């Protein structure tokens, strides 16, 4: 079965090599990273930001950060995919705080920063373009849906999700396990 959007164990080395090549100044490696992850990064940015133009601007900022920070990537802390999504998330938040603020001056500041990191349901609404997946996520209890969305689409760690959802790490993991069992069942049934 082809799984082009995941990071099978055999491909982790490839990702790390690409990051190392970026650190060594090889711009082609950055292009290859974009080929692998540009679509998912752009999809999530599109959900986090108010317009496709803003998402296009920020996806460039995000990959520029990847280029500049390639030396800091630490494989022990997680996959390249997770690292990339975290950089994209931060780039989106920066955009909202600076350029985004200019275009939304009439909005109260707290609303702007609130929207920089939308609720999980909001993200699903804006990021998930497949009705089948949207339905499968909608069928989960909200707290399970939130854990999957925060970890998968936004690359949050277990501690970050625990902090954000005010739940112990053990509870977060329990919710994730149940959600994954149900999603696997629902999405497999409909195949």
């Amino acid at each position: 079965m082809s799984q082009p959007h995941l990071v099978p164990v055999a491909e982790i080395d490839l990702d790390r090599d690409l990051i190392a090549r970026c650190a060594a100044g090889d711009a082609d490696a950055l292009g290859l990273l974009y080929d692998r992850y540009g679509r998912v990064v752009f999809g999530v940015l599109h959900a986090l930001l108010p317009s496709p133009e803003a998402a296009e601007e920020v996806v460039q900022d995000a990959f520029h950060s990847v280029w500049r920070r390639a030396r800091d990537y630490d494989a022990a802390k997680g996959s390249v995919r997770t690292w990339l999504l975290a950089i994209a998330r931060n780039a989106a938040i920066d955009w909202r705080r600076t350029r985004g603020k200019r275009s939304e001056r009439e909005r109260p500041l707290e609303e702007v920063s609130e929207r920089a990191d939308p609720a999980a349901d909001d993200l699903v609404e804006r990021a998930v373009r497949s009705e089948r997946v949207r339905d499968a996520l909608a069928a989960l209890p909200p707290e399970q849906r939130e854990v999957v969305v925060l970890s998968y689409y936004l690359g949050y760690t277990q501690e970050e999700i625990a902090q954000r959802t005010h739940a112990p790490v053990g509870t977060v993991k329990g919710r994730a396990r149940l959600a994954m069992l149900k999603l696997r069942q629902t999405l497999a049934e409909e195949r």
Partner: protein
Amino acid sequence: MNEHPTDDLSLYALGLVDAGEREAIARHLVTCATCREELRSYQATLATLADAAELEAGRAVRERIVQRERRGSWRGLPRVALALSFVAAVVFAALAVASVRQLDELRAQRDEYARVLTEVAEGARIVALTTKTNGRAALVVPRDGQPMLVLDLPAPPAGKQYEAWVIRGGTPIRAGLAPQREGVVLVPLSTSVAAGDVAAVTLELAGGVDQPTSDPVVAGGV
């Protein structure tokens, strides 16, 4: 891990495990086909989620991303290398010999580093090392065979030579001497490297010493 980590495979697929758990599960997966199959089913589920979020940015975006770094490859170089190019430029200006030819040579030297690195690093792991002053350095760990350093450092002063070390548990192990010449050099290491080791380079008396006598000019964790 003897028991199957069945309950944690979905968390592993999602990335919701800590480093210790990740390592234990990865080790188990190497020998357990049942768990690999279970993991694949969760990965297939996540692939469906990924498909649902993906969206193509405008065609020109990729080009802009790559061109920005290619065009600004001076800017894009690691900071130490950038510093080297400034230093080089200042030196050239002071000596009034900043000819186009020399700048081209400097550029060619940079390209040489990328070329050598790409050549020796095919299929290998590359660890970018930190350089204390000027230059660039990487540790290349092939799947099989000898690890090596690729160094792009200023030429050593007369009578001196760069010496490579692998520092294991705080103890430096002699690992090789760099050829005494300018430009990009390869230093095959005479000892293997493992996770937790530190690779380092010091400037020593030509011919090498038993123990490092100066602070490393290059270092980085493996």
